[in-house]
């Protein structure tokens, strides 16, 4: 069952996934562009090299998020279009079906991750870095893997539910942060507790450090000291 499901997802996503794979392989090579390769002559100053590499820095988490979200939405896309009638007529528990579907998408997610890893290894092996700088292909690939997987898992969880559930959850989050911030600043006028305790801000910080997207707050660098 898993293999056909994997094939089904592949068939559905391949036109989008292949550019992602190419992009994932190419991004590390673009990152080292202009830094000088083993055969080349240009060796720039460390700071210049680092700034050049860091100009691509935001692309990595964005790419990871795009890959994860695209895979998750595509996993359920056809089922949503067909009102889930076909999937619900299959002799398999919904949990098992969702699990296999998730597994298929996760397996496909490994393609761009592997491509990025390969691209990073190639980039690290061909570039001549100024003294003091190092390439971190493995760390970057691992971070990318986590970024893809957490985006995938989040979007998959939403897509697996109904639109109603998604709307409720997103509205609740939005209400907490927007409504909560407004309510807090209003209450702070009357209740000293709220002058000293930024509940909404603290929640946001906790989410950033221990929330699902903590991996996106770290340093996504191929090249660093």
């Amino acid at each position: 069952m898993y293999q056909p499901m994997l094939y089904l997802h592949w068939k559905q996503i391949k036109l989008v996934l292949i550019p992602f794979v190419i992009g994932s392989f190419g991004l590390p090579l673009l990152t080292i562009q202009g830094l000088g390769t083993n055969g080349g002559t240009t060796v720039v100053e460390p700071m210049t090299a680092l700034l050049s590499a860091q100009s691509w820095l935001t692309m990595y988490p964005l790419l990871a998020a795009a890959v994860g979200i695209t895979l998750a939405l595509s996993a359920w896309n056809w089922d949503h279009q067909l009102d889930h009638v076909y999937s619900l007529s299959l002799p398999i528990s919904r949990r098992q079906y969702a699990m296999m579907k998730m597994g298929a998408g996760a397996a496909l997610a490994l393609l761009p991750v592997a491509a990025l890893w390969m691209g990073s290894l190639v980039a690290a092996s061909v570039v001549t870095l100024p003294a003091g700088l190092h390439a971190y292909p493995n760390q970057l690939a691992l971070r990318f893997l986590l970024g893809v997987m957490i985006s995938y898992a989040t979007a998959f969880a939403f897509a697996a539910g109904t639109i109603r559930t998604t709307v409720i959850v997103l509205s609740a989050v939005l209400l907490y942060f927007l409504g909560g911030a407004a309510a807090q600043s209003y209450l702070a006028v009357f209740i000293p507790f709220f002058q000293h305790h930024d509940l909404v801000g603290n929640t946001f910080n906790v989410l950033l450090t221990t929330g699902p997207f903590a991996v996106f707050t770290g340093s996504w660098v191929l090249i660093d000291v």
Partner: protein
Amino acid sequence: MNRAIEIHGLGWRAGRSFALKNVELSVPMGSIYGFLGPNGSGKTTTIRLFMGMMKPDHGHIRVLGMDVPRDMARILARVGYVPERPHVYPALTVAEQMRYHASFFRNWDEGWAREMMDRLELDPDRKISRMSKGETGKLLMLLALSQRPDMLVLDEPTDGLDPVVRRDVLTALLDYVGETGATVFISSHLVHELERICDWVGVLDRGEIVAELPMNQFKNGIKRIKVAGAPMIPVDPPFTILSRQTANGNGTETWVVRGWQDPMRQYFDGVGMNLRDIVDLDLEEGFVELLRSSRPHTSHRS
């Protein structure tokens, strides 16, 4: 008698516009059960409820002796389902869809499936999104039959198909049933089609079951009779009067009755009425009269 589908007190409501009200349904094992009803009567909803795709507000459902939705996975392993609208993945080819489908069904008969594919003239390399409605219909039937189910649930399977395809699909179905004795639950508003193949019939109208009986009783039991000297309120008729119509002002009335049997002729002599004529109705006419009679605002006398 063993029942393939048993539904008791099933209720489901969608807002104010539509509701299934205490549906009672009993499909005998091995029967070909025609589920009749006009568009919007709740046929597809009923099917989705006993296929475990929707949650009823109340009532109990058992399919093939197992509880819905608790045993749904085991039930679906023995049920071939052809839904109202094509539900297969459009980007797959016929062969890919067959492979995908086969992977879920332990009883999948690959040889039979290939034979069917040839017989139904389906191209294995053809993409489903490029197939005509008829070809898709044939594929759906192929998928449902090749899993060798104990029961087939067909929701308007021939709706919109041309006569040739319809014949092919129904022939394949009947061949399978003839070979395996599987139960078939077939929903349709094409009454004449069911007339030929069904041995049981259930009629749903506005979310309520208005009749459920063997096909021969349904067909033979509905008659149009002409009577003279009928009183305003007939005394204890042994049949059900579905409609009354005064003809030409000459004192005779045309009645459509249900549950007719020949010995009932004597009833008219006993109440002073004169039975002039008895006309057989086909299923469609009977169906129409049945629906007309079941609706609260339809006048019985015009």
